[in-house]
């Protein structure tokens, strides 16, 4: 033995011997080989990667004691070499993904534990559970602190996301969307004002959920300091799917069918029909007539009709919509590159007749390593949408649908409405006067054709292990061609008309990075990113309104006797930025990160267009620094962050301008135009620009602390964050009195604070071999407050509303106070009654409520038993008020059940008669009310003041349910199939609780703008359910 030892030691002195070790790495769950696992000889820079069969071969110097095996989704394994030459490894799954890598700004991947701010991921699979056609809606209830509002259910409609409350009173509050590192457009551009138009949609709806691998939500300036101004409200980082290295080619086919119908329709009464004071009136749109007793009468079209109820008339108008999605994708990769190609076709028809949308998405992505340490990647996406038919919202347009359909008299049959033409071809009106919705949908069609291409190209050089230099350029460009017809014979436009709007938008983004990632010594390492960014956005709109058609079927400008073209460059912004991100880590357990960015923004005056904003964040993984009882507290991390970000404003706001005039406003009609007697007209803007050189950027300063705790071997996880975001120098259009000559002045003024906390609780209550139950709760509570306003102003308007009620930001209150008319009351809260009429007295300009919610909570549960998987998501929004014009009008017109009770009784309103009042309106003497009024008068006054339309906006929804079954894989062992999965799924299935009657509280009249919490004759939202088959080869 002595001899052998001596021999060995002689050998080790004389020759630096290398041992070759080989082996296979398999996953512990499925016992399958894992390609791509990193194998490192610890203490050296020698490493390799397992091949497609999970096998590796590594030559390590004598004396190396440990091999480490690491791969995403698995726990890192360290194996002692112990002179073995074959080491097979079983990698345990990293179920809770302690070493999860998270995508941060610019697509840089970092370990989650090193981040000093809260980040939440949504896996691509989550987006495919009951696919939404607007992916922004898929985030509802899944991310703490993220509030999602979809505006309507029509195909192509828009969606609004706000993270941690509104920071800006009049500016943008939506996050930046980034795909594969490139910021993309989420525009919502109005052609004609939103008050009388369809929901224009927003561009995030072009993104195909089938192509998304992951969506990461960066919640505030802390996470987005590197993106600069555009991400002051947070960012949603989307990573598209790509092939993996050393992965055999796989093909995935996915097919879904879903059916939609209205989630909630008003609770109609079916006793009383058209008329007033219990007399039948066939022209009336209100239901104050006598009980429907089957008598014959002459209806509004002049025909004999029977006075009977049609309880389902409104329901019959809404058809069952369907959505069919088919997608195919091919992905794979070799040792030096990978690629993926995906194709998806979506075909949707809405619940309103003649509304259809078809979309094709093509997604191509690839990456490749080249010789001399060069690498490159690219992505290309094409989205093509053809929308034929969209519903007009609201009530101010003759084309509005819901304001007619939802208010059909109770004795009016939908079949009668379906007949929208008289035998001679002329239009058949609704109740003799209004436009028939079937006419609107068939003749006055809105079409929108969108062709969008976005993509990127990247080239980089990694000359050493620690240095990475790359340049990435991305482009997002689309054209949207909109057209809205008004056929000859339409109400208000008897000679026909149409408008077209050709919108072109383009964004270019260029990022140049240098990244240095080095260990200083055994304990310390640093990660430095230095970069330069160029971003340009350009939007133009070419609009034409054509009127008075000669040939009623020809909708081209040449056929119109009057054309009013308008060309406008809507926006043109350039931002140049330079930034750095320095990360230091100690023992992979203590992390410090400092970032700084300087932006130059073209929308601000030259004197103020450059500004710098920094951030500092730190995190400590306590469980790796101190010994903790790991069976109870498996992982503990604390984090803290302070950061600042600024934002500019829209283009072209700094100069005073004059606009050439075309139409001339008159009381009725649209006849007069310029030139007037040969003279052109110009008018100055009614918005006062800031004095030159004065406008400054809005600055948001935020700090955040949080902790991430895992208990009981990752069976329970708790993530808690508390944050405070203060936005100063709000760039607001301040309402100025008309006597200044301006309606608004653009100034810096005002400070808004958002503070709150988020909790993410995850648990795996049951984890057995066959049955698993995972549950997670996302909770976010945000308090918003305007803490400073310009001198002398108690409030500023929140722009966007066109009629009462309006929204305001009052000092020391949450942004979004609903202001409108209310009933006058005495000091005991009793209504003041008019002594002449017995009806209530009104007053204007009262604060009626606030749209800001108290908290939002999402609860997700997932059960799996062998191949069967059931998941459901509950979404709870608590608090905040909303105003519904629909509910008011349903009641005032006697349409709904509550108005059908006690109709024949005279009613004395519960109030006091105002006998004498002071100059300021306060009552001096009153007496109890004794003036009887009819029930019709009582209900009829309920849409006189805005107060009666205010309701608590709390709701609890069953957001999605999915039941899927993956056929056992052993059935396909010798077939080309990989997996086959079938499922049934549903979305927005039930409104479990709602404080507001008759409608779904989750709608928005003004679309995704800042004017939220207001509903006025929106289309009913939809519930959808259907099935899905997925096959992989």
């Amino acid at each position: 033995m002595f001899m052998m030892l001596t021999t060995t030691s002689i050998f080790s002195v004389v020759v630096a011997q290398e041992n070759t070790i080989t082996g296979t790495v398999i996953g512990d769950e499925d016992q399958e080989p894992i390609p791509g696992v990193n194998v490192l000889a610890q203490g050296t820079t020698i490493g390799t990667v397992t091949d497609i069969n999970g096998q590796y071969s590594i030559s390590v110097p004598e004396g190396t004691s440990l091999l480490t095996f690491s791969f995403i989704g698995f726990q890192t394994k360290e194996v002692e070499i112990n002179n073995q030459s074959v080491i097979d490894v079983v990698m345990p799954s990293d179920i809770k993904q302690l070493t999860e890598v998270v995508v941060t700004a610019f697509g840089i991947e970092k370990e989650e534990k090193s981040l000093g701010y809260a980040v939440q991921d949504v896996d691509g699979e989550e987006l495919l559970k009951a696919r939404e056609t607007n992916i922004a809606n898929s985030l509802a209830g899944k991310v703490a602190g993220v509030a999602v509002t979809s505006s309507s259910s029509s195909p192509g409609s828009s969606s609004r996301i706000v993270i941690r409350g509104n920071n800006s009173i009049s500016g943008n509050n939506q996050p930046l969307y980034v795909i594969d590192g490139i910021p993309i457009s989420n525009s919502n551009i109005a052609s004609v004002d939103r008050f009388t138009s369809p929901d224009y949609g927003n561009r995030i709806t072009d993104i195909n959920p089938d192509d998304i691998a992951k969506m990461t939500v960066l919640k505030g300036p802390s996470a987005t300091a590197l993106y600069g101004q555009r991400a002051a409200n947070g960012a949603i980082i989307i990573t598209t799917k790509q092939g993996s290295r050393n992965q055999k080619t796989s093909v995935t086919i996915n097919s879904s069918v879903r059916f939609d119908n209205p989630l909630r329709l008003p609770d109609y009464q079916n006793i009383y029909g058209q008329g007033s004071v219990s007399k039948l009136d066939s022209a009336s749109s209100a239901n104050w007539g006598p009980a429907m007793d089957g008598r014959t009468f002459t209806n509004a079209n002049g025909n004999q009709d029977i006075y009977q109820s049609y309880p389902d008339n409104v329901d019959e108008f809404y058809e069952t919509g369907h959505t069919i999605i088919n997608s195919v994708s091919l992905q794979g990769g070799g040792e030096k590159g990978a690629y993926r190609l995906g194709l998806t076709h979506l075909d949707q028809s809405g619940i309103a007749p003649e509304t259809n949308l078809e979309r094709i998405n093509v997604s191509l992505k690839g990456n490749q390593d080249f010789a001399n340490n060069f690498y490159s990647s690219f992505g290309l996406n094409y989205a093509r949408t053809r929308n034929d038919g969209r519903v007009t919202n609201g009530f101010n347009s003759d084309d509005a649908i819901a304001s007619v359909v939802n208010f059909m008299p109770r004795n009016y049959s939908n079949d009668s409405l379906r007949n929208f033409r008289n035998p001679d071809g002329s239009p058949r009106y609704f109740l003799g006067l209004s436009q028939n919705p079937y006419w609107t949908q068939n003749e006055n069609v809105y079409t929108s054709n969108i062709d969008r291409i976005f993509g990127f190209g990247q080239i980089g050089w990694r000359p050493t292990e620690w240095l990475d230099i790359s340049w990435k350029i991305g482009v997002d460009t689309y054209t949207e061609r909109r057209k809205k017809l008004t056929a000859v014979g339409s109400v208000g436009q008897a000679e026909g008309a149409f408008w077209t709007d050709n919108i072109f938008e383009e964004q270019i983004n260029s990022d140049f990075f240098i990244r240095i990632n080095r260990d200083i010594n055994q304990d310390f390492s640093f990660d430095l990113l230095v970069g330069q960014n160029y971003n340009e956005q350009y939007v133009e709109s070419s609009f034409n309104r054509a009127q008075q058609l000669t040939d009623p079927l020809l909708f081209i400008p040449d056929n119109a006797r009057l054309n009013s073209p308008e060309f406008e460059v809507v926006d043109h912004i350039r931002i140049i930025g330079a930034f750095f991100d320095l990360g230091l880590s100690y023992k992979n357990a203590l992390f410090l990160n400092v970032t700084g960015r300087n932006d130059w923004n073209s929308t601000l005056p030259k004197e103020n267009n450059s500004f710098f904003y920094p951030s500092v964040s730190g995190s400590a993984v306590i469980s790796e620094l101190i010994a903790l009882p790991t069976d109870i507290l498996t992982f503990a991390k604390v984090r803290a962050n302070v950061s600042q970000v600024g934002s500019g404003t829209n283009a072209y706001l700094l100069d005073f301008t004059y606009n050439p005039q075309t139409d001339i406003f008159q009381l009725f009609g649209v006849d007069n135009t310029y030139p007037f007697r040969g003279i052109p007209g110009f008018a100055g803007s009614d918005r006062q620009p800031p004095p030159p050189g004065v406008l400054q950027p809005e600055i948001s300063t935020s700090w955040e602390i949080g902790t991430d705790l895992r208990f009981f071997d990752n069976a329970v996880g708790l993530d808690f964050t508390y944050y405070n975001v203060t936005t100063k120098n709000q760039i607001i259009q301040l309402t100025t009195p008309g006597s200044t000559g301006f309606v608004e002045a653009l100034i810096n003024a005002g400070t808004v604070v958002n503070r709150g906390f988020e909790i993410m609780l995850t648990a795996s209550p049951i984890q057995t071999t066959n049955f698993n139950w995972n549950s997670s709760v996302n909770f976010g509570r945000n308090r918003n407050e305007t803490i400073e306003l310009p001198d002398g102003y108690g409030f500023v308007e929140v722009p966007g509303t066109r009629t009462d009620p309006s929204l305001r930001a009052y000092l020391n209150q949450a942004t979004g106070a609903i202001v409108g008319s209310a009933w006058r009351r005495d000091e005991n809260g009793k209504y003041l009654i008019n002594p002449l009429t017995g009806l209530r007295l009104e007053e204007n300009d009262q604060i009626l409520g606030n749209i800001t919610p108290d908290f939002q909570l999402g609860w997700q549960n997932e059960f799996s038993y062998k191949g069967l998987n059931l998941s459901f998501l509950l979404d709870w929004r608590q608090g905040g008020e909303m105003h519904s014009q629909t509910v008011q009008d349903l009641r005032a017109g006697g349409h709904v059940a509550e108005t059908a009770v006690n109709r024949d009784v005279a009613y004395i309103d519960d109030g006091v008669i105002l006998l004498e009042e002071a100059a300021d309106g306060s009552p001096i003497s009153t007496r109890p009310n004794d003036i009887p009024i009819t029930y019709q008068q009582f209900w009829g006054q309920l849409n006189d003041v805005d107060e009666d339309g205010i309701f608590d906006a709390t709701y609890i929804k069953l957001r999605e349910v999915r039941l899927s079954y993956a056929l056992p894989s052993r059935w396909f062992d010798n077939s080309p199939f990989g997996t086959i999965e079938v499922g049934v799924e549903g979305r927005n299935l039930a409104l479990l609780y709602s404080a507001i009657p008759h409608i779904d509280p989750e709608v928005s009249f003004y679309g995704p703008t800042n004017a939220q919490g207001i509903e006025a004759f929106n289309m009913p939202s939809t519930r959808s359910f259907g099935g899905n088959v997925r096959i992989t080869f």
Partner: protein
Amino acid sequence: MTMKKFIIFTLTIFILSSCEDVLDINTNPNASTEVPPGTLLTNAAISLSQNRLNTLNPDAAAFIQHWKPVVVLTGPDTYVYSQIGNNNFWTFTFYTDVIKDLNLALLSAEEAGNNNAAAQIKITQAFGWLHGVDRWGEMPFTESNVPGITAPAFDDGEVIYQGIIDILDEAIAAIDLSNQSEGNTIVEFDPLYAGNMDNWLAFANSLKLRVLMRVSYVEDRSEDISQLLNSDAEFIDAISGDENAEFQYLPSRENQNFDYATFDNFTGLGSFQLDENGNRVHQRWRLASKTMVDILEADNDPRINAFFQPNITNPGTDIEGAVNGGGPLPDIVDRGYVSLFYIRQDKSDEWLLASEQYLLEAEAYARGLVTGAGMAEAQEALENGIQASLNHFDGSDFEIAQSEKDAFIASLPDLSAISEPVEYIHLQQYITLFYNSNEAWSNWRRTKVPELPVPVGAPIETIIRRIEIPSDELDNNPNSPAVSPLIDLPVYFER
């Protein structure tokens, strides 16, 4: 070390990465930053005229009972008017178009030394201001549209009327009749007089007389009035009407009278009465008022058949006026209707006519406000004024026959013989300002002639005296009154 040099090198690149030229793209390509002042003048004038034709005149006509509206827009009959319209007129037409835009145009005209252009703009602004102060009583004047003042203080009537006179004086002084070429004068883009500065000067002087007379019952303006009328100043005094300040419209849809458009756009609802061939005979929504018909019939005034037409079924021309406010309407066959002379596509907007000029002069002379002039001058002015008024319909279907004109002039009373000559002149002013009802309402509030019954159903107990300050101004201007003055509060110049 190589790494240090590397870092310095890359940082230098980044410092150079801010390039100011690249960011210089914020000039608005969608709008102009400088425009010819005539275009702003036209826009302001049209905006004002549209409000006069669609709202101010029809509302006032009901207020002072020139006619009675039925079927549509009947609110003003009982002093109900559109709050939104009031708001829009204050903010958009008045302070934005007429005051702010024209202030900017004035600035550029004065900078360029274009005196006549400056005068044209000022006269238009003065004309606008008079509408405002007559209507609302008190409003921001000296502090309006001043950069830096976001809460303009309200001025009272005394300050504003003097201010209007000052503006007119400046304009009159600036006019250079010898140089009326384009540039110094707005010619091609002048919608009122096409650059004729003689007419502008006449308009300015007549407007000044109107304002002086307006305050003549609450201020002693006899010196100013004397000076004005005794000077050789040009006034709008062509009896033919050639110098009238009338804003013209064309008989084509794109440039038609706004008031006419209201009728023309609703023929389906019966705005016009048609004969069996489908030709329009008369309109059906503005009835002859009892007040006006009684006055005209009492004097056998031939203008009754120019102001009003009988119903298509009426065999003759005798009409019965309708009472303003609540009350029974005359039988259809007896009704009178505002004539198609006034409701037509190319009807002009009457800003200041020669008839008004003469009748103001007559009143000034009759009241002894002018040194060296008395009843004789008043009589002459009265007859000229009536003559001009009778001639107003010449050339139209409603032309008054020469014999009737002569008979009526002959029947005019001898002012030196009747007991209340000034009251008679006031009555003629009331009649002659027909269609320019907004001015008639201001004049009535000053003269209180004729005595008008308060319409049944009105919310106040007098004839309406003013319009409320719009709620937007009250809400947004901390220096506005807490509550608007009510509609029965007399305005500054009332007797």
